């Protein structure tokens, strides 16, 4: 199949930020996740848990609360005191509104979805009315003496529970006055702690309030009498989060020790109608604090400081063996953070607030499979480019020739010209960017580096001509009237004639760059596009979807290719379809038109279209080289998918030239080493 020299890169020092909140939307089966850097990500659980949208973070915007209201509207609130609503179509922030109560610690949407409640640093609970296009302050509840850390509505919408420091208040929504105040015991394992912070409350329809606090307790209160009913001490550290199932028959709590506990309402004896809450299952999928939990109908979702988003399916709720039945740990973003200049062998790494440019090393040695070759030149760190301002970088790209770097934040677009003189590089910013190039969701250079394609968040696609040190705006493809959907993925053909752009839900649009018009639209598919690329010469567009399907569409013929039809007819190997990370990058071999190179986080695959497709009986992945088999056997067992799982977790893989690959790995151990130390737990014998 081929022998490659692989540049195995592990110096991409990427550390995802910790997860702060998750909010599950039952209606659309989507999960919103906010991270400590203010990034908000939307995962589509129906589309194989694909991270379909994201909103870049902001240094001053620490999100403390996230919730869905009015069906599909997403709100967040944070320590800057603002409530924000996100535009899920245009992928920007609709508006931010100051609640005037100091930092906001908690937020909850009313059961009807029409009201929003925020708990503030100054002890106030503020009620907002959600109007069709904004939110409107309605009134304050009785001011409490310390910050409101958690809020929960009674399912009927008449009362709320608010967790504060050392006590829980119950408010009557109509009057806004506190009905009960329940003092939480400060005692912690017999020692009186300074304060007991109520990190989470949940109000059940039968009037029970469940609270979790910093003393490691899960407590059940009777809201009618304001009395403590039951107390479970479950951790030596804080219990930081709670989420209740819609049926109110189970709930989940997360502790600072990284443990997630499942509580279930079970009958006291079999056949008895009397039920009680029992701690049923502990899960330890996290090493650090579990800052937030969510309870979907079939799974427990947790996230925390260790940056993993964990979906733990409840086996009793899962009927069929499919994606939902498997434990899932999402650590890496489902988009590409790395771009590569093939000509100069450069890698551009995108971080939240800076870019790094590296030059790959070289070797003159040769070897056989598995050898590590001696380096004649090591990799160089050429450039460290810091952004200005507090906003996170959305996207970045280096041109194939290596002389342009472009990146964008929410409010600014930056283009740099790089000059190489021997070992020195000089960087010059191209100034006076036009106003429409304010913010980009995706940037791409053409193969000859003469054109720059920018997908702006207004849905327009801009083409910019680059020559010398200057640029010229050529054209803008405006979105079809009536749609505001932002384009997230771009692909350009190597001959520069075709540009493909894909949004989050609609089909892929293909534009003719020469004639500057829309050429065709690939039929929409149920699952979002995770990666796409246009093959050289044939101009076939290869599209990977989040359900692991791969399509090949001939742009000149405006139809799916025969190979793609064959694949669809026969279907992919079941193991291929069971992979749980999306394909994030597709590339082609310049000399072998039949090959498609693609990768996800755990494997790298070359699809050879000339070979027969594997059926479910054949071995999809054979890690061992064929040894003493005859050619006939080898030819008979050979199939189109050549898979390598040596490199993982694989964030980027591309072909530099015919015989050279670059693979960027990010070992989990390296990430863990950069996280703050977890709470030390005494283990046996230590």
């Amino acid at each position, binding site marked *: 199949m081929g022998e*490659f020299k692989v540049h*195995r890169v592990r110096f991409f020092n990427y550390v995802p930020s910790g997860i702060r909140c998750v909010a599950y939307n039952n209606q659309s089966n989507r999960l919103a996740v906010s991270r400590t850097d203010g990034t908000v990500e939307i995962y589509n659980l129906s589309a194989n848990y694909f991270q379909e949208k994201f909103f870049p973070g902001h240094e001053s915007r620490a999100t403390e609360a996230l919730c869905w209201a009015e069906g599909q509207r997403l709100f967040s609130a944070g320590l800057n005191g603002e409530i924000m609503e996100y535009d899920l179509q245009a992928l920007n922030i609709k508006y931010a509104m100051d609640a005037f109560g100091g930092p906001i610690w908690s937020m909850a949407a009313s059961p009807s979805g029409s009201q929003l409640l925020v708990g503030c640093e100054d002890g106030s609970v503020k009620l907002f009315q959600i109007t069709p296009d904004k939110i409107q302050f309605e009134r304050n509840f009785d001011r409490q003496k310390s910050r409101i850390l958690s809020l929960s509505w009674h399912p009927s919408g008449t009362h709320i529970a608010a967790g504060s420091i050392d006590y829980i208040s119950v408010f009557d929504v109509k009057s806004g006055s506190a009905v009960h105040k329940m003092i939480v015991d400060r005692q912690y394992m017999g020692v009186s702690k300074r304060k007991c912070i109520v990190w989470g409350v949940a109000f059940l329809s039968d009037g029970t309030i469940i609270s979790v606090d910093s003393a490691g307790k899960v407590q059940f209160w009777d809201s009618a009498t304001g009395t403590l009913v039951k107390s479970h001490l479950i951790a030596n550290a804080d219990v930081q989060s709670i989420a209740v199932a819609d049926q109110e028959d189970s709930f989940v709590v997360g502790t600072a020790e990284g443990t997630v506990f499942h509580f279930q309402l079970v009958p006291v004896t079999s056949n008895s109608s009397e039920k009680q809450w029992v701690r049923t299952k502990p899960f330890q999928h996290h090493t650090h604090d579990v800052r937030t939990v969510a309870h979907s109908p079939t799974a427990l979702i947790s996230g925390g400081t260790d940056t993993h988003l964990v979906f733990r399916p409840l086996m009793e709720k899962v009927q069929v063996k499919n994606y939902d039945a498997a434990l899932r740990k999402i650590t890496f973003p489902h988009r590409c953070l790395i771009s590569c200049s093939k000509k100069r062998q450069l890698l551009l790494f995108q971080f939240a607030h800076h870019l790094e440019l590296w030059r790959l*090393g070289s070797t003159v040695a040769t*070897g056989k499979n598995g050898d590590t*070759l001696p380096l004649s030149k090591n990799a160089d760190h050429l450039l460290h480019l810091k952004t200005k301002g507090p906003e996170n970088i959305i996207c970045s790209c280096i041109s194939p020739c290596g002389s342009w770097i472009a990146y964008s934040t929410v409010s600014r677009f930056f283009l740099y010209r790089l000059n190489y003189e021997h070992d020195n590089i000089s960087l010059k910013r191209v100034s006076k960017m036009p106003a429409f190039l304010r913010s980009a969701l995706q940037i791409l250079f053409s193969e000859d580096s003469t054109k720059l394609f920018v997908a702006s968040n207004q849905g327009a696609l801009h083409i910019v001509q680059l020559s010398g040190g200057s640029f010229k705006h050529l054209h803008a493809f405006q979105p079809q009237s009536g749609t505001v959907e932002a384009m997230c993925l771009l692909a350009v053909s190597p001959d520069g004639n075709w540009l493909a752009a894909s949004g989050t839900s609609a089909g892929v649009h293909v534009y003719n760059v020469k004639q500057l018009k829309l050429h065709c639209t690939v039929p929409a598919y149920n699952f979002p596009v995770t990666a796409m690329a246009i093959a050289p010469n044939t101009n076939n567009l290869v599209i990977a979807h989040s359900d692991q399907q791969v399509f090949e569409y001939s742009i000149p013929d405006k139809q799916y290719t025969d190979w793609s039809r064959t694949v669809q007819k026969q279907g992919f190997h079941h193991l291929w379809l069971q992979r749980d990370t999306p394909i994030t990058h597709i590339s082609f071999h310049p000399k072998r038109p039949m090959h498609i190179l693609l990768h996800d986080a755990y494997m790298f695959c070359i699809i050879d279209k000339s070979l027969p497709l594997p059926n479910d009986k054949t071995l999809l992945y054979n890690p061992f080289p*064929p040894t003493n088999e005859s050619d006939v056997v080898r030819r008979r067992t050979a199939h189109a998918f050549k898979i390598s799982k*040596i490199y993982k977790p694989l964030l980027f893989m591309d072909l530099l030239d015919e015989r050279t690959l670059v693979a960027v790995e990010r070992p989990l151990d390296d990430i863990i080493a950069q996280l703050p130390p977890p709470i030390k737990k005494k283990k046996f014998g230590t």
Partner: protein
Amino acid sequence: MAALEEEFTLSSVVLSAGPEGLLGVEQSDKTDQFLVTDSGRTVILYKVSDQKPLGSWSVKQGQIITCPAVCNFQTGEYVVVHDNKVLRIWNNEDVNLDKVFKATLSAEVYRILSVQGTEPLVLFKEGAVRGLEALLADPQQKIETVISDEEVIKWTKFFVVFRHPVLIFITEKHGNYFAYVQMFNSRILTKYTLLLGQDENSVIKSFTASVDRKFISLMSLSSDGCIYETLIPIRPADPGKNQSLVKSLLLKAVVSGNARNGVALTALDQDHVAVLGSPLAASKECLSVWNIKFQTLQTSKELPQGTSGQLWYYGEHLFMLHGKSLTVIPYKCEVSSLAGALGKLKHSQDPGTHVVSHFVNWETPQGCGLGFQNSEQSRRILRRRKIEVSLQPEVPPSKQLLSTIMKDSEKHIEVEVRKFLALKQTPDFHTVIGDTVTGLLERCKAEPSFYPRNCLMQLIQTHVLSYSLCPDLMEIALKKKDVQLLQLCLQQFPDIPESVTCACLKIFLSIGDDSLQETDVNMESVFDYSINSVHDEKMEEQTEILQNGFNPEEDKCNNCDQELNKKPQDETKESTSCPVVQKRAALLNAILHSAYSETFLLPHLKDIPAQHITLFLKYLYFLYLKCSENATMTLPGIHPPTLNQIMDWICLLLDANFTVVVMMPEAKRLLINLYKLVKSQISVYSELNKIEVSFRELQKLNQEKNNRGLYSIEVLELF
């Protein structure tokens, strides 16, 4: 655990129940309400929870109801047949049966069958089946004859299996029984001949059936008082052909065969059946619930006023005619424990009425082995059964044996037991052995002079006994100080409690050497150490130094060493000669081999006198030394104690009795030796710990080799 609750009578009104009893009790469309049809003219709707009738309907004088009223669950109407051919349909609002819908049919109806979810079926006396709707569309339609002349329908039941209605009815002709299974949807009627098995002249008194995915399990109560099970496939392998079904015995002698009154059988759930009848010929009638899986009686209730031999079961209620009134007994089956399932039978003290065995026989197939075979195969089985039957004498040997035990002399019993054991192992072997031992022990307790030792030995060696089956056995052996039997028990029983183990140990240590000489204990665990002890003596000094890699010379801090070295001869002598006689060693080895749990054993060990503890410790120490002479750290012999067992027991004994032992001057040397032993072990382990660090370093080096650093260029070949 299945349980019958307090009974209650449905009404004080005496029903006009004829000698045949009631015509039927049927469910209505409301869960708590039941239709009771008496054998005269009346149908009454009862609400069971209120114990009162909700409605009552009668046919005209001169007419007689011939088929119990049922509820059409699809419409909520009630259907009844009077004078064999006249069908009446009415509902709750109707008052007079005369004025309700009437249809006269062309053939005589045997029964109307209705279950939830489908339309009612009408089964005619000639075996034809019609849906009620189809029949009402044309009441005078011609009804074909399915069964032959003189064939009479005895019983019928209607099921819904996977939403397909399945009807089964049993007919009888000249003492032969036939089962018809009608798949109502596909209109396939399959006829089976029920083979009665060994007892050809038995009459089936009552039927019941339950259904699972593939089979209808037809249970029948025969006149011999046994319950038989026949599995009838729902989907016949070969429809159209007349096939035979063999029955298998499910429960034996649940009711007396020649009872005056009728008997009835009803399946309650998968594992339970209710039987109505008198358990003994003379006794009163009884309602009993049996677990067929464990073949145990779960509960029973006496019905002194007699019944009509009819029993209905719906939901959680059993209905029967007790005396003259309709009685309801709620039945509950909650999740049960094994102990509960093992039987609620009272231990019958009366030696004459040894009706049911105490021991469950787990080996015999419980209705699952003898399924449906096609006719040829089943005939073959029958033939084989017949042969077996002819081989067995009228009184089975087990019963003979049991009666022998009660009366005869030890000698005779021994002969009988031997005879029984020589027989081929019968399916009820376990049970008989269990009963025999219990019987023997009871007699032992009653007559102090009676001690059939050889018998017991033989029975223990059958490997089927355990401590919990006959706790008295070891108790008696302990009382009689029968060390041989105790050793055997220790070897054979898996479940001896620690207190008994300890009691055995006490006896083994205290029994005099002279009395040991007389006994004949099993010596296979003991190796004759005295044979090569002379040879060992020369090696002694060396082996002690080399063992476990520990060199006592390095041991500097030991001031008692010198004291020890003063009498080197003593030491060698002490460690090389076995401190106990061989027979006692064999007994102690049996203790070492037995299973125990430390927590339970420790308190009992404290009761052993100090000199015995020392003796045992000395023996254990001796065994340890013998062990460490060997490179593999094992003792010679066929079944010797293992090193772990020896060490555990040393620890246990010291834990339990340290304060006592440490005060004894004669134990001092032993303790010092043990102390040295522990010390040597510690130093060995500390050496190992030191090595571990080096190993870890090596491992780390190995890992570093795999860790390629931040950047490398590698060669990858894809195949």
